[in-house]
């Protein structure tokens, strides 16, 4: 072994030009592989942190009647089928050991109406119980203006990205109730017209649904303006609204409807839609002096808050316990849900997030393809260079064979040369790659491009290297070394002593 490595090492120094070519390729390959793996790891970690941890969890329950799995970013705004059995679902989810947390949500598209404009804008609505939402996603956004709504409060949390878009569309700058214009949060366009900026602290939205439901236009008081900590240009299309207003907006049964036991469709049939039945029999003014009954509306809302889970949702976001496998969790959960006749089933987050989930997979695949291509190019160049080197040294190799060197010795010599070059330049490339992966996040490289944000795994380009990632690069380098050395080893091993003599 020592002899093989001695000869291999000295041959590297003897053929400095060729060694440098192979070395540069190995260095570049190892560097790009390390950074590429870092980008893939960073993206995976970013997606996990930002989408799974901050937006929708690991799994999503949707109605069996739902045709498309893509419920999050359907660009056509197709209505999401309602889920009406949440109470039953809740019991099942609570009994699953691999489920860490879950949140029922309403999710659909709404038209944003403006009295001064005939053309409506659109916004995605996510209807939630604000308190439960905060428990599920405690730090996915910051309230940059206004405040977070109280439990059961009817309000909307408007994203600042959508606010900028709607300003460009309607020329209205949304601000929270009781709040004013905060100059540092103005978009470039709004800042240019800061002195005469038309503002509004509420927004009228009309739900877009399908089937038998009748949607309603609801005026939502704006409680706060939020900015997502990551992927703000993607998540910033979603307005968080209280679940009861959401249901009213989409024409679903609300919890108050359920409490009153008068289905909305029946009210409609009776022509009593929007009517206050109690008011027909008397108001507060009819009560005897000194006796104060709670207004009907307040009672209904209190019931609604208490029993908000009675109403309709569109999906349930689920976070799994650490270490739970998706495939197993989906199978077990779907079995339990089907047995209980809930009419819903579980899908993974990347199916539910449609193009966003697919794009992450496409970017990952593209990077993998890039690294594989890099391998192939590196292997081809190294194979050619080493094969040329073997043929140029045919006389020397043939002489070694003549005086008793076995084919394995000659092959070992070439493997040794490649291994030494890989060790020096490859490890150098890996170390440089590790340094680059560490330095890149410090540069706070940002992008305004939605897809690049996915690649970045967040608002900043944040490649991440784990020990398995480095081990993967070392393994890839090892594979390149062995594959690149195989053919030249074979060529060199097949050189005969006669070749040495006939070439003299």
């Amino acid at each position, binding site marked *: 072994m020592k002899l093989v490595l*001695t000869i291999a090492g000295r041959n590297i*120094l*003897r053929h400095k030009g060729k060694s440098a070519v192979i070395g540069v390729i190995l260095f570049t390959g190892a560097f790009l592989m390390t950074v590429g793996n870092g980008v893939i790891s960073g993206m995976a970690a970013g997606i996990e942190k930002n989408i799974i941890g901050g937006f929708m969890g690991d799994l999503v329950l949707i109605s069996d009647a739902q045709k498309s799995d893509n419920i999050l970013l359907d660009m056509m705004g197709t209505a999401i089928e309602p889920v009406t059995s949440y109470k039953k679902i809740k019991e099942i989810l609570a009994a699953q050991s691999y489920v860490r947390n879950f949140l029922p949500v309403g999710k659909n598209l709404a038209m944003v109406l403006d009295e001064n404009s005939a053309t409506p804008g659109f916004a995605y609505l996510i209807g939630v119980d604000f308190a439960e939402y905060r428990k599920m996603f405690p730090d996915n956004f910051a309230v940059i203006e206004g405040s977070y709504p109280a439990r059961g409060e009817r309000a909307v949390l408007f994203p600042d990205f959508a606010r900028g878009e709607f300003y460009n569309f309607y020329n209205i700058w949304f601000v929270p109730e009781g709040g004013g214009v905060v100059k540092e949060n103005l978009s470039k366009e709004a800042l240019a017209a800061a002195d005469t900026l038309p503002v509004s602290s509420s927004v009228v939205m009309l739900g877009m649904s399908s089937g038998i439901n009748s949607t309603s236009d609801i005026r939502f008081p704006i409680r706060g303006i939020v900015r997502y900590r990551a992927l703000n240009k993607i998540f910033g299309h979603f307005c968080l609204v209280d679940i009861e207003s959401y249901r009213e907006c989409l024409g679903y049964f609300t919890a108050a409807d359920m409490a009153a036991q008068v289905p909305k469709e029946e009210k409609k049939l009776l022509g009593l839609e929007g009517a206050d039945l109690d008011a027909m029999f008397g108001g507060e003014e009819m009560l005897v002096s000194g006796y104060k009954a709670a207004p009907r509306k307040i009672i209904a809302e209190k019931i609604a808050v208490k029993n908000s889970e009675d109403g309709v949702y569109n999906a349930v976001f689920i976070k799994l316990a650490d270490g739970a496998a998706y495939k197993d969790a989906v199978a077990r959960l779907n079995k339990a849900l089907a047995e209980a006749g809930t009419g819903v089933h579980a899908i993974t987050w990347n199916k539910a997030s449609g193009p966003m989930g697919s794009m992450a997979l496409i970017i990952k695949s593209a990077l993998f393809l890039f690294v594989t291509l890099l391998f192939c190019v590196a292997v081809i160049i190294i194979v050619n260079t080493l094969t040329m080197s073997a043929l140029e040294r045919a006389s*020397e190799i043939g002489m070694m064979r003549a*005086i*008793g060197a*076995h*084919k394995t010795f000659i092959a070992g010599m070439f493997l040794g040369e490649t291994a030494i070059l890989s060790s020096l330049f490859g490890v150098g490339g890996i170390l440089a790659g590790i340094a680059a992966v560490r330095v890149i996040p410090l540069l706070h490289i940002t992008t305004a491009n939605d897809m690049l944000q996915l690649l970045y795994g967040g608002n900043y380009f944040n490649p991440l290297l784990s020990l398995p990632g480095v081990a993967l690069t070392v393994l890839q380098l090892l594979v390149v070394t062995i594959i690149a050395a195989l053919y030249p080893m074979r060529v060199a091993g097949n050189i005969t002593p*006669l070749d040495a*003599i006939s070439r003299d």
Partner: protein
Amino acid sequence: MNIIEIKALRKDYALGNTIVPALRGVDLAVREGDFMSIIGPSGSGKTTLLNVIGCIDFATAGSVAVGGRDITSLSDRQITDIRLNKIGFIFQTFNLIPVLNIIENIEFPLLLMKKSAAEARKRADKLIEEVGLKEYAVHRPAELSGGQRQRVAIARALVTNPDIVLADEPTANLDSVTGASILELMRQMNEIEKTTFIFSTHDAAVLKYARRIVKIKDGLIEQDPVAA
């Protein structure tokens, strides 16, 4: 005792569709410790005969026994082992390993035999002294003259104590004085190490060193004092 026995040896080369016979039925026996020269004009078949004896080339027909073992039907591994353990080579163009220094070149075959580094170095030291190049031990081949390189090749050929040393035109690339000194050295080594030497040449001046001269012409032995 015969160290080499060749019977009815034929060697043909294919040149396109034409078969060119290089050896056309050679019978030869070489005694242990012989110092023998094979002479003949260019293209007579002397290099081919040496290559077949040295297990570098293969016979088309006939038998070749080295040290009593028929080498015509052995595997590559077995043939390589015979070259390593039984035969030493001296080439016309010296053929030293350029990246190894002189002492490393000499001990190289011993390291291939898996001898310990210390044992290999001890034997190489002895040989380098015998060929008079001790002061060049750590020099690279490129730093030596042709005659000095051929001395190194002789030391390397002898380092494994082979049964036979084969030298193909060992003085062809040397001036006459250096060539004579190389042949003198080979003869000394033949006497000291008792190794059988077979060398090819077409230089008449070389013949005075040989104890036995075999003449070959057109692939056939034309004159062999032993056979006669």
